[in-house]
């Protein structure tokens, strides 16, 4: 059974197929409005994530399908001690496809190993969040028209930022990508990502703490939030949370066609004064996330023979 647990589960060609479908949905939404009639998406959210859950639900409703599920572990059988494997087997009897969010890393893989329907990883702790990467990829493609020959800056929490790791993995498969890593010392990209992804794929990269000095080089600036929930120590969080705040003044030397992305929610790392700048793409990114989830649901249901 085909599932999406890690962005690398899909080839470059398959990602392009999803992007083409998403673009077609954007151009001709009426063609898709009944495609999932009678089908059910189960959103199994063992930790709250309103935006991701609503994006999945909106995606399924726009395909004409229905949604069942829960939005926190307290209201699920996990509270009674049921295993992820058993939950996956049970839900397979009720739904056609699962979107699972879980605080423990690897939980969606366990679900996929036991379910008889496709499983989509909607985020597992600090590990993977492949549908966010799908949103990021469609945004880059619609803004730039390509994935090749780009200088991509990642700024903020590069240590715990799983969306950063996933997007770097995804981009590492394209030609002539250059990566710029901007973070405080304590939140630098883990060495295994630098070694296993960047170095292994011969992707040139630079590390810096100074955003201003590298700004003129960037085609894409991917901002991230310093996430309170990833810290064991509140003091460390408070010390690092305001490391980078993007303001209109800080864009003085940026390219005119820079694209600013952010997986959202933001706290204060992007000033609201930037929201009206044409280079701000983060709200479009949210919308594109829904279209990519629609394309993904269609692909997985088709491959499972359920459409």
């Amino acid at each position: 059974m085909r599932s999406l647990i890690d962005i690398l589960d899909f080839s470059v060609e398959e990602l392009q197929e999803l992007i083409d479908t998403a673009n077609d949905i954007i151009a001709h939404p009426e063609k898709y409005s009944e495609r999932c009639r009678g089908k059910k998406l189960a959103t199994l959210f063992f930790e709250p994530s309103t935006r991701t859950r609503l994006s999945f639900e909106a995606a399924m409703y726009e395909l004409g399908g229905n949604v069942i599920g829960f939005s926190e572990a307290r209201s699920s059988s996990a509270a009674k001690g049921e295993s992820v494997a058993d939950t996956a087997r049970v839900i397979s009897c009720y739904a056609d496809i699962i979107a699972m969010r879980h605080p423990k890393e690897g939980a969606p893989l366990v679900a996929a190993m036991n379910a008889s329907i496709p499983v989509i990883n909607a985020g597992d702790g600090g590990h993977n969040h492949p549908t966010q990467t799908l949103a990021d990829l469609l945004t880059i493609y619609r803004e730039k028209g390509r994935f090749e020959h780009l200088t991509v800056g990642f700024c903020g929490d590069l240590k715990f930022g799983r969306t950063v790791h996933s997007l770097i993995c995804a981009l590492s498969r394209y030609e002539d990508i250059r990566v710029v890593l901007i973070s405080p010392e304590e939140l630098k990209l883990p060495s295994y990502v630098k070694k296993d992804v960047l170095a292994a794929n011969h992707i040139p990269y630079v590390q810096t703490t100074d955003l201003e000095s590298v700004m003129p080089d960037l085609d894409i600036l991917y901002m991230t939030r310093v996430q309170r929930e990833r810290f064991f120590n509140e003091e460390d969080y408070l010390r690092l949370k305001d490391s980078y705040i993007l303001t209109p003044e800080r864009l003085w030397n940026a390219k005119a066609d820079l694209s600013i992305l952010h997986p959202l929610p933001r706290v204060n790392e992007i000033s609201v004064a930037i929201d009206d700048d044409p280079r701000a793409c983060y709200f479009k990114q949210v919308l594109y996330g829904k279209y990519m989830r629609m394309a993904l649901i269609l692909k997985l249901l088709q491959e499972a023979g359920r459409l």
Partner: protein
Amino acid sequence: MNIDSIQNGIVIDHITAGQGMRLYELLGLEKLECSVAIIKNVVSRKLGKKDIIKIDSGIHVDFDVIGYVDPGATVNIIREGRLIEKRTIDMPETLTNVIFCKNPRCITSTEQELKHVVKLTDRRNKVYRCLYCETKAN
């Protein structure tokens, strides 16, 4: 130093010096009733120094564990005092319930029934990672 040759059993040879004890532990050899010898720092023409384990019993040994710890090791099967089989050991693609994931955020930390599986992700550098959370196994 003399260790008696064995009649029926297994000799794990060409173990990288220093890895013999780890192999002894991961193979669970401390549970055996038979004679088991760990010989450390034996002079070797090929390796300079090596460890050897001799097990005086025809027990089943998990070759995958040997391949995980030390893929250069060889296993000699002895029957009635004669060498009947000599195996070289390759790295296994996966290993189950031998190495336990230590990542407190991994799903294996809360679901006790789940098998602990590590998979080979980098053959050249002998890197294994947890199947679920991809944390590097030691």
